[in-house]
């Protein structure tokens, strides 16, 4: 039944987005704004010209990595809500290698290649280590990852706030280890020129498209391959679907649990590195605010499929990019975007609602299954 598959795979998600946009419009009207102007602003800001489209793609890039991080955990049966913490750890470690390690190999191209690689690696390692701790705790003590990863988000933000502390001369407190010594703002020094992700397209306007988008696509394909075409991926999915069965068949559930969190954390760290090395060229506070939580919705929207994440991250990137223009043009606060995102997720997850509204026949299939309760593995 090809037509039924098209309805399910394309038709229902599109109708979900459409319905969520309509309901968002009702909220806009209720608050006394003009929905047409608001959505026009949103579309303009996201796709209106080359600069807008570039902004959308730049916003999309870290969401691909962080969405993959969440999805990878889901496939292994782990709900990694700690992507936010792993992400900021990665953005700081990549900034550290970016400013503190001069790479001069004579040839500027070679230096850039090596330095960018090392800084990306540092981001991945930073995120991976931060993800490994909850993974180890889960594997060896049974402490539930939903709780520990959230706790590690807060621990990470405190740790980074200490590392980047601007200092207080009045109280005689020196600046943090990674602060650039400006005395006011908690930020790292600028990364060296060689650590900046190369720009691949630079339209007029403030934003330039960096190499990260290209890397994000490669990462999505690589994760798809890893999950579906390797022994490790098979073991990962088996642990995710039925960990007792996996254990009886001789798979080390502990090892898979830790590895899942390490890889998920590494992907999250890379998401942070994209912001540091491609956009801000340093770590600044709040540069990645909320990215780790949007990632959950991005992954859920794509049913954790790596290629689907490219699409949902593009959608979210567009909404992020267009939100500012929308607020500027129509006065509608950007938070309406979040409301629409929540509604999209709701309709995609509960396709029965959409089938009821639009009288689409066919049996609603049970949506994706992620939670296995708080059960042990």
């Amino acid at each position, binding site marked *: 039944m090809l037509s039924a598959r098209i309805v399910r795979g394309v038709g229902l998600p599109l109708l979900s987005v459409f319905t969520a946009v309509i309901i968002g419009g009702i909220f806009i009207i209720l608050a006394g704004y003009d929905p047409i102007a608001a959505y026009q602003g949103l579309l303009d800001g996201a796709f209106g010209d080359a600069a807008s489209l570039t902004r959308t793609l730049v916003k999309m890039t870290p969401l691909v990595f962080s969405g993959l991080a969440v999805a990878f955990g889901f496939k292994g049966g782990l709900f990694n809500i700690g992507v936010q913490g792993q992400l900021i750890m990665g953005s700081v470690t990549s900034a550290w290698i970016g400013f503190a390690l001069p790479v001069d190999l004579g040839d500027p191209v070679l230096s850039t290649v090596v330095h960018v690689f090392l800084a990306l690696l540092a981001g991945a390692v930073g995120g991976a280590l931060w993800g490994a701790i909850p993974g180890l705790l889960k594997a060896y003590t049974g402490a539930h990852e939903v*709780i520990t990863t959230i706790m590690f988000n807060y*621990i990470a933000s405190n740790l980074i706030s200490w590392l980047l502390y601007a200092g207080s001369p009045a109280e005689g407190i020196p600046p943090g280890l990674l602060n650039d010594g400006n005395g006011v703002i908690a930020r790292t020094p600028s990364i060296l020129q060689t650590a900046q992700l190369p720009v691949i397209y630079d339209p007029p306007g403030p934003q330039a498209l960096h190499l990260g988008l290209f890397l994000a696509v490669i990462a999505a394909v690589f994760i798809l391959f890893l999950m579906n075409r390797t022994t490790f991926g098979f073991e990962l999915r088996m642990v995710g679907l039925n960990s007792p069965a996996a254990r009886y068949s001789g798979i080390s559930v502990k090892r898979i649990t830790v590895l899942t969190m390490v890889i998920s954390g590494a992907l999250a760290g890379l998401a942070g590195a994209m912001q540091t090395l491609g956009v801000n060229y340093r770590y600044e506070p709040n540069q990645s605010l909320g990215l780790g939580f949007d990632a*959950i919705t991005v992954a859920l929207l794509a049913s954790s499929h790596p290629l689907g994440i490219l699409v949902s991250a593009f959608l979210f990137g567009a909404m992020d990019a267009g939100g500012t223009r929308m607020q500027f043009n129509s006065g509608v606060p950007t938070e309406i975007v979040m*409301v629409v995102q929540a509604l999209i997720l*709701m309709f995609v*997850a509960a396709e029965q609602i959409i089938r009821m509204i639009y009288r689409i026949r066919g049996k609603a299939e049970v*949506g994706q299954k992620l939670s296995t*309760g*708080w059960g*042990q593995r």
Partner: protein
Amino acid sequence: MLSTVMVEAAARSRRTIWMTLIGVVLAVVAAFAAATAVGPETVVAVINASIRGAIPIALGAMSGIFSERSGVVNIGIEGMMLMAAYVGFMINVGLSYGSVPAALQAEPVRLGLSIAGGVLVGGLMGLLHALLTVRFRVDHIISGTVINTLALGLTGYLYLPGATTGGRLPPAVTSPLTPDAGLFYWVGEIVLEKGLITYLTVLLIIVFTIALFRTAWGLRTRAIGEHPRAADTLGINVHRLQYLNLFFSGCVAGLGGVFLTLEAVGTFERGMTNGRGFIALAVMIFGKWHPLGAAAGALLFGFATALQGQLQFFNIKIPHQFVGMLPYLLTVIVLAGFVGRARPPAHSGKPYDVE
């Protein structure tokens, strides 16, 4: 099958009560020891700050127990709290305008309506969670994420900067004691001088514990969380009870939310719940899905939070960021070291089909 599970649960429940009592005794001894070292003012300040920090966490954990005991995982507590905090605050703002009749502006009416409104909105969010998970069989984690995102978006969208109110909840009982009364004065400073919601919370914990383990409703609720098929066979309407309990769950989370805007802080800020709903889940697991255990966990967490503000009295030079990590580190250590593999209600997180 069901009966052995219930017997085990009862044994665990008795153990939890003993553990809680021992914990309380130890805490009192520690408080006395500390009082001789740093003076009673500091100790009372730390205890009061602990209670203030514990109330929303305890209510969030109760909310979690209500839903998980009924077989529904609720990670939307954060959103339910935030939404209720906003609505309670905005009703308080609305009723504080000059043009509103004086009868409505009077403190008990205004604040009573604000609390009721916030709690009701929390309950409605709970019903939305029930509708999605029970009726439409949406994955419980996804539904919770929808609720959290929706609440963060809606409250941010409708946020009015600079809105003011006619004031927050005053202490429900004022202490008649003076410092001359010695120890009783300090006990009075801890037990009295609290707002209405604090007392409501204590009452709720006791009532909920009795209801869960000593009433027909409690037996049915635990049954549908452990083995809905068996409960269904015995004539319990599983889905109806889930709707009811999720409404309660939302109401209790809502009370935690309005505590923030009507009793503790007095104003609303974007995202002000700041992870409390998730911490409440940790506390729920720490308390092994038992209201008293969760209450003890909430106090422990409140204590770690309170230390942040008070550590300067002890003259210890640690960067404040590390002190800020304390509650979170403590939760992780407790989860990993002491609780081990917690056993949730057996059917929590799974959908149930009536045959």
